[in-house]
């Protein structure tokens, strides 16, 4: 712990002036730097959120429309709010005759999701992830209930 | 003399000063009396400016309105106890005060009207400041250097007195 130096009259005066000028130089430089404020609705064309931003839950599908979900239900159990509801069915595999679980519908309630990412962490196959899309405002609450998987017809 | 702008302005200022002075001595609240005094000082400064003596008008505003009134208001704020209303005067005291004021008015009017004033040598245009400075600091016959120095000694005594009263023991 350094002790406070005792300044006399003149040395205190000059020390004070020096420190004041140091502070003023800092704000002077700040005055001329370009501001990082982004003006939101006008800059939608160039807006890019950072990768880890949790906007909404999506289930990525490849070109043929397949997803990686095996309907294990781990995400449903991990969610603290009960946001995810999985409807699955047991299907008989035609070749081997074994029964396998298959995903029918993946309910996701955007209104009750708290974006904690526990579901994504729990999924063993990286079937679901968060995208950076954040503009979700709607006028009816029913529109917030989403079905995340796309079934092939 | 006809009705000139100077006359109208003088009348307005005079009415303003008289009304404010009467209000200043008849009101019961101390701080309002200080405010009415401020108005009287403004009016007086206005009369000095009308006489083209801007130095005295500026001094009036600076010292009286800006200094003495602030002094009054500070001392009222620091020393007033319960509220700021003065006590109600007894009728006999008010009558005696009115009589004294009337007597003073009669004496002043008598002296003013009986005295023969010198004819006023009214120069148009303002008094140059260097003339004021020279007369204040010169030691010749009509110079004011002695009162000037005596006043500064008086102010020094006030400052020393104030420090002595306010110092920590």
């Amino acid at each position, binding site marked *: 712990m350094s002790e406070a130096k005792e300044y006399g009259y003149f040395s205190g005066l000059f020390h004070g002036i020096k420190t004041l000028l140091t502070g003023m130089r800092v704000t002077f430089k700040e005055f001329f730097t370009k501001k990082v404020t982004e003006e939101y609705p006008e800059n939608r064309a160039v807006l890019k959120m950072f990768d880890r931003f949790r906007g909404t839950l999506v289930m990525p599908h490849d070109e043929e429309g397949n997803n990686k979900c095996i309907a294990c239900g781990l995400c449903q159990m991990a969610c603290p709010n009960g946001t995810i509801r999985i409807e699955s069915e047991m299907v008989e595999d035609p070749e081997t005759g074994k029964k396998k679980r298959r995903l029918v519908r993946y309910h996701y309630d955007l209104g009750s999701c708290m974006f904690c990412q526990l579901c994504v962490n729990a999924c063993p196959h990286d079937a679901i992830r968060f995208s950076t899309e954040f503009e979700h405002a709607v006028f009816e609450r029913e529109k917030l209930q989403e079905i995340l998987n796309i079934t092939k017809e | 003399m006809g009705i000139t702008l100077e006359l109208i302005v003088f009348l307005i200022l005079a009415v303003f000063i008289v009304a404010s002075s009467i209000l200043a001595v008849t009101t019961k609240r101390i*701080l*309002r009396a200080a405010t009415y005094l401020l108005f009287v000082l403004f009016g007086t400064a206005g009369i000095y400016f009308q006489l083209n003596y801007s130095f005295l008008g500026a001094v009036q505003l600076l010292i009286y309105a*800006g200094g003495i009134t602030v002094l009054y208001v500070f001392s009222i704020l620091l020393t007033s106890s319960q509220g700021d209303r003065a006590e109600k005067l007894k009728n006999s005291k008010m009558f005696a005060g009115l009589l004294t004021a009337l007597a003073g008015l009669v004496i002043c009017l008598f002296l003013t009207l009986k005295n023969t004033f010198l004819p006023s040598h009214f120069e148009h245009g303002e008094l140059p400041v260097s003339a004021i400075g020279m007369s204040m600091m010169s030691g010749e016959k009509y110079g004011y250097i002695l009162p000037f120095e005596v006043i500064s000694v008086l102010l020094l005594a006030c400052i020393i007195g104030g420090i002595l009263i306010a110092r920590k023991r």
Partner: protein
Amino acid sequence: MFDFSIVTSWIHELLTSVMPAGLAVFIECVVIGVCLMLAYAVIAIIMIFMERKVCAAFQCRLGPVRVGPWGTLQLFADVFKMLIKEIITIRHADKFLYNLAPYIVVLSSILAFACIPVNKGMEILDFNVGVFFLMAASSIGIVGVLLAGWSSNNKYSLIGAMRSGAQMISYELSVGLSILTIVVLTDTMQFSEIVERQADGWFIFKGHVPAVIAFIIYLIAGNAEVNRGPFDLPEAESELTAGYHTEYSGMHFGLFYVAEFVNLFIVSAIAATIFLGGWMPLHIPGLDGFNQVMDYIPGFVWFFAKALFVVWLLMWIKWTFPRLRIDQILTLEWKYLVPIGLVNLLLMVMCVVFGWHF
């Protein structure tokens, strides 16, 4: 250099040819009064807008951008909001003094504003004791502040008002000393004369070391005189819940607010007039071509550029430093600024007597 007195004398002749002289003077006074109040309001709006944008730039943000192009109409929205706010009357407050106090502050501000020369021949009050009158006008505002604090019937307002009053009367001394230093350099107190005599160089260059020191002292003391910058303890919201104007709302508060910003402009304009040459362009003695080019730019452009530059300096100071306590404010004045100011005055007197100036 465009001489505005051509316009004023033309108007005066036009009026005196159709009506008696007294009535002409009366009408001229009314017109000048209206123009003065309009200019007051316009300058206040420009100042407040500049404050918000400059403060934002120092604080790494953008300031108002949405209302109007680059946020220029934000101020009109704010003024409209302030006008329609309810004026709350306080119980047990002295109503006459409570309503009078903002007007005294604004009166002192308008009187000081009327002294500033904007262009050649464009000044309203031009006494030959102009500097003296300016100091007188600014000392009237103190009474308004004290009355505002007392009549609000609120002990925090009273404390704020007394602190503000003590601060203002202390720093008036330093303001007077630094202006006096320049009055010693030029032997006149009249503002138009002060500006005329800077035709061959501004006073901050002519009186070298003492004038620069006086300029710095004037900036600090002027800042404190108008309760701005690091000296705004009386109106600090975290300290005294807005000090002497706590109990004022709506238009009354608007008057205090406007008076504060115009006082800032007045302090800067006086600094620009006395130290930086007012409406006088930059002349370097000896370079005649340069001087001719400088003369093409009209006087009021020079004046506003200089005044706004000094305003920017004062805003830079305000948004860099934290607030000072009242005992630090008074220590700064009485232990540092007054002795330095007095020594500086002596130095300037020696410079003038021995001819060590340009």
